[in-house]
């Protein structure tokens, strides 16, 4: 068991960060970010060809984090691999000491930088969750016995601001039924909306050991917030936060974004809204330690 799962199962307020591997072999910034964060957070997510853009692999970077004494949440999409390759990579990840896997369908290739690639989607997220659960029980997808089972903590995602919300909620419930043990949400900004969602989610997870971490993407400018509202489905930055971001000069915007993020972390923790937070600084991970300080988490 990794320390991410240990933290989650202990009932502690879980904090994770995110590492987006670089597109290429220049890894200095990424290694610096890992070094900076690995002991401050319970786990570091590593994205898998995020936004369908070719990058250094999630498994290799997850392994590096684990070998450096941190804990990694290995993100895995079903976009680029069929069921044979997915299970093969799960066994490989397990061999490399990786113990948390976040099961995603993955962005469509048409939004990425290899638009003519053939997307796979042999499985999707719910089926990947089922597959990991089966491997934890000692079987491959078709029911053949494994020589030694895996021991993965199974994660999934949910989009609380999805519109319409009903089918999204149904899928969330299916992910739990399939075997998801923890969730990281798509970025949330409207804390009232999120508390309503959590009220519903708590009802669903009652009596089950399922943890839900709020996804928090740090706002860096009012432009970025508006961009997300316009172009990122399922992400909604409310007017009061847009105004707050616009209330300061440009060069202080990132500080304001950090303040907002820290304020949200505190609120979620103090009011026991959810089980933890997943902080995404999207390439600016050097600001995460200060956010954790502002939120009294270190």
């Amino acid at each position, binding site marked *: 068991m990794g320390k991410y799962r240990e933290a989650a199962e202990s009932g502690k307020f879980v904090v994770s960060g995110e590492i987006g591997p670089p597109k290429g072999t220049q890894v200095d910034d990424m290694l610096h970010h890992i070094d900076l964060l690995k002991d401050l957070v319970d786990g570091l997510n590593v994205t898998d060809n995020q936004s369908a853009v070719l990058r250094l692999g999630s498994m290799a970077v997850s392994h590096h984090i684990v070998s450096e004494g941190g804990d990694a949440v290995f993100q895995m999409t079903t976009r680029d691999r069929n069921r044979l390759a997915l299970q093969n990579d799960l066994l490989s990840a397990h061999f490399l000491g990786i113990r948390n896997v976040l099961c995603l369908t993955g962005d469509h290739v*048409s939004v990425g930088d290899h638009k003519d690639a053939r997307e796979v*989607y*042999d499985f999707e997220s719910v089926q990947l969750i089922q597959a990991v659960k089966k491997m934890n029980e000692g079987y491959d997808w078709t029911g053949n016995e494994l020589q030694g089972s895996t021991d993965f903590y199974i994660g999934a*995602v949910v989009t609380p601001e999805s519109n*319409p919300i009903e089918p999204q909620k149904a899928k969330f419930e299916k992910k739990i039924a399939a075997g998801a043990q923890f969730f990281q949400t798509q970025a949330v900004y409207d804390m009232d909306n999120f508390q309503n969602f959590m009220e519903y989610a708590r009802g669903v997870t009652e009596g089950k050991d399922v943890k839900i971490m709020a996804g928090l993407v740090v706002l860096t400018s009012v432009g970025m917030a508006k961009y997300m509202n316009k172009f990122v489905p*399922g992400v909604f930055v409310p007017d009061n936060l847009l105004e707050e971001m616009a209330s300061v000069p440009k060069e202080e915007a990132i500080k304001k974004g950090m303040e907002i993020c820290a304020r949200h972390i505190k609120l979620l923790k103090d009011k026991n809204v959810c089980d933890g937070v997943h902080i995404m600084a999207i390439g600016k991970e050097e600001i995460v330690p200060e956010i954790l300080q502002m939120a009294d988490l270190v």
Partner: protein
Amino acid sequence: MIISQQKPFEEILEALGDQEKVYLVGCGECATMTESGGENEIADMKTRLEAAGKTVLGNDVAHATCHELDMKRIFRQSKDAAKETDAFIVFSCGAGTQSVREATDKHVIPGTNTLFLGNVKRNLQYEEKCSLCGECVLDEYGSICPVTRCAKGILNGPCGGTNNGQCEVDPDKPCAWVLIHNQLKKEDRIDQFMKIQGPKRWNAVERPGRLDARDKDEEKGAA
């Protein structure tokens, strides 16, 4: 029907290269409906090719180009032209082009791109709703196919890219999962939505597909 679209004329000329004598084949079924290979399009193509210096030795619109025996019969009837031509240009689907392939040893050029199996919305407007997966699961989804109509072919509900009922991949298309959810609600079968669906048996039909319905065992779905 099979939806096809004519290739750009320059591409057809490029495929011909130095070859001068051509034989045009159209199709009386789908390609006539889609106006990619009916009588009018073949006549138009003949004019354009002649203007480009080519000699059109023959042109036929088959009843259905995908019928291989028909193609052989047509070329027997036009034996001289079929023998003398440098190349055949086929304005049908890719299946039709390969029927022509079976009927001659000459250079066979597709004059169209074959797009999808389409429903006709109205004249000349088509939408893909079935991808010929070989194992119909429509009843599981209110007879709205997620294999085809969800850009990711997801079988268990919408992804995070669903956007006010539209698909993130193409905002002009509805999210199939919102359609399915609404439909199952209308039928009072929303419980069906909660069923966890396993992945498709992608090899339900071994590709390339083959069916001999004269063989009664095979006809009963031995696949």
